């Protein structure tokens, strides 16, 4: 029973860690973009204040049960996904509840949230939300394909379908998968900005086009929950990439360094990019990333 106690404690700590790190990353992102834009920018803890402020809104409006549940689906997805990936390779707390972290399971649970969110956005009856959802799902089809190709290539190459298994193989071989299967890494990396929905792939909530799209009817505690979920999920995605391609991390500092380095890629690209149109985004993903994905598959299979 001790084990379970530790695991629950670990899960709580991991969630807290993910929240904090994700929030600070978002803060750093705002700061870095501000510096690129020739200004000072908000303090790095600004996002905590935003979340707290939204949480302390006195009223919240919903258009029905699905909208009420939408942020809930999102945060459930982020937190449960976090439960299923190894945050640190070994250690007492942060190995967490990764019940062997099957990759296909991860791929599927990661769409649980957006689907719920889409349903909630749909119930608001705001046409902008619906258009945003239709764009988002379309874009998802775009970036999922190269990303899945990269993952399948890894799975075929190393004959395991679990993150833990891939981590073990990396520590056995002593090399990271970004070096041992570079094509898969490139494909996954190219698909990454789409997953983060930063520019040029911020087409879902494009303010100038859709007035922030699916979230346009969410405010107060709902928006706060969604922001929380977003920051946790950013951490989850980064950790997953680190686990898959950069050999995981054995302590928190290593994790932060690796994830932050990875995070800079979508952030910096996003700072100087305009937005794609939806079909252009999908065509982008079905261009070079798909090519690298195929190459990775062929490399892995033969």
């Amino acid at each position, binding site marked *: 029973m001790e084990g379970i106690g530790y695991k629950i404690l670990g899960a709580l700590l991991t969630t807290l860690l993910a929240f904090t790190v994700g929030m600070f990353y978002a803060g750093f992102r705002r700061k870095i973009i501000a510096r690129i834009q020739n200004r000072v920018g908000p303090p790095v803890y600004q996002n905590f204040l935003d979340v707290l402020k939204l949480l302390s809104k006195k009223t919240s409006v919903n258009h029905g049960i699905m909208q009420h549940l939408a942020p809930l689906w999102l945060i459930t997805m982020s937190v449960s996904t976090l439960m299923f990936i190894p945050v640190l390779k070994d250690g007492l707390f942060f190995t967490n509840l990764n019940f062997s972290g099957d990759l296909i399971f991860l791929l599927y649970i990661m769409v649980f949230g957006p689907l719920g969110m889409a349903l909630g956005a749909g119930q608001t009856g705001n046409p902008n939300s619906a258009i945003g959802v239709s764009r988002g799902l379309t874009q998802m089809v775009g970036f999922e394909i190269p990303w899945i190709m990269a993952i399948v290539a890894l799975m075929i190459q190393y004959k395991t379908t679990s993150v833990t298994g891939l981590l073990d193989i990396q520590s056995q071989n002593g090399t990271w998968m970004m070096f041992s299967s570079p094509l898969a890494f490139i494909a996954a990396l190219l698909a990454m900005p789409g997953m983060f929905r930063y520019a040029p792939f911020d087409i879902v909530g494009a303010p100038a086009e859709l007035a922030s799209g699916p979230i346009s009817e969410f405010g107060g505690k709902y928006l706060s929950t969604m922001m929380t979920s977003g920051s946790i999920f950013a951490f989850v995605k980064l950790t997953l990439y680190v686990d898959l391609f950069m050999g995981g991390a054995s302590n928190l500092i290593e994790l932060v360094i690796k994830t932050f380095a990875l995070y800079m890629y979508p952030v910096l690209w996003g700072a100087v990019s305009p937005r794609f*149109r939806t079909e252009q985004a999908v065509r982008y993903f079905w261009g070079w990333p798909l090519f690298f994905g195929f190459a990775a598959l062929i490399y892995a299979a033969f």
Partner: protein
Amino acid sequence: MREKTTTLYLGPQHPGITGNMMVKLQVQGDTVVKAETHVGYLHRGFEKLMERRNWLQSFTIVCRICVPEPDPNEENYSRAVEEIEGREVPERAKYIRVMTLELARIATYLLWYGGQSGSAGLYTMPQWSVGDRNYILDLFEDLTGGRIYHMYIWPGGVRRDLPHGFKDKAMRTMDYLEKRLDDYDKLMFENSIFQKRAKGVGIIDPEKATEWGVVGPPLRACGIKSDVRKDDPYEVYDKLDFEVPAMEGSDVWTRALIRRFEIRQSINLVRQALDKMPSGEYYNKIPNPHKWTIPAGDAFVKTESARGEFAYYMVSDGSNKPRRVHVKGPAYVHGVTLLENLLVGENIADVSFIMNSLGTCPPEIER
């Protein structure tokens, strides 16, 4: 039965709309099948108010007609009054006016840089260009005391002479801006995603452009060399050296290129105006404003603003108040008939983008 098309209100409260107006879109999928421009959210009844104000009081409110670019209004008003009254303007004042107008054009183009790329999601560009626009506004502040509303060009000349050291400061600012424009080019024009967004979007039929009332950069992007500064030269534009650009293409991208060329030309024009500026009077006296009457008559004056031909039709009945001042901004045609027709068949994603490239500015539509 409800329509099969979806109604989308773009504005008035919308981040993608330029100013306070509304475009009611009927969309099928994400393609616009019908667009209706609704204005009147900014209607203040200027033309009514001017009927109640004497000639000088009216002058103070004309600059409020178009916020992003107030100076062509002042210029138009002053020139209309001068034309009816037959009032002469000193040569120096003319140069100062040209310089002010060109500075205003630069400021507007910088704002356009921000709007055009901001509506495409390139948020760094507005931060840079709108930030740099402040340097122009600083010059205005030195010159007139106001950042936005200058009330500077008035009938008979300009309100003040250039302040001490203004020329150097203006020259330095121009040099700085010219340097910055290269950065803008790298960020915006050389960006392949921006090019993908802009090319082939919002095409105006070049054959019909003049007939449809297209003016300014959109018309020049249709390959037609049309510029009031050349066609109907006012002030001292006939003494300055510049050329009217014209490019084939008539899409958002071409219009952007035209503006990219023109902002550099305006910098050059400011330099020329400062260099060639003669010394002398900057103002011809007007009588006691409350007694100031203007003979009966009418005038139609035009100024090339950053967004195109800005025209005033002024009628005086010989009293101390204007009978009628009718303002026609370029957006009057661009924002209503042209926009409504141009948006049909375009993607929702490009609506705001096209509006920015046309330079739609609601306050001058409804005044």
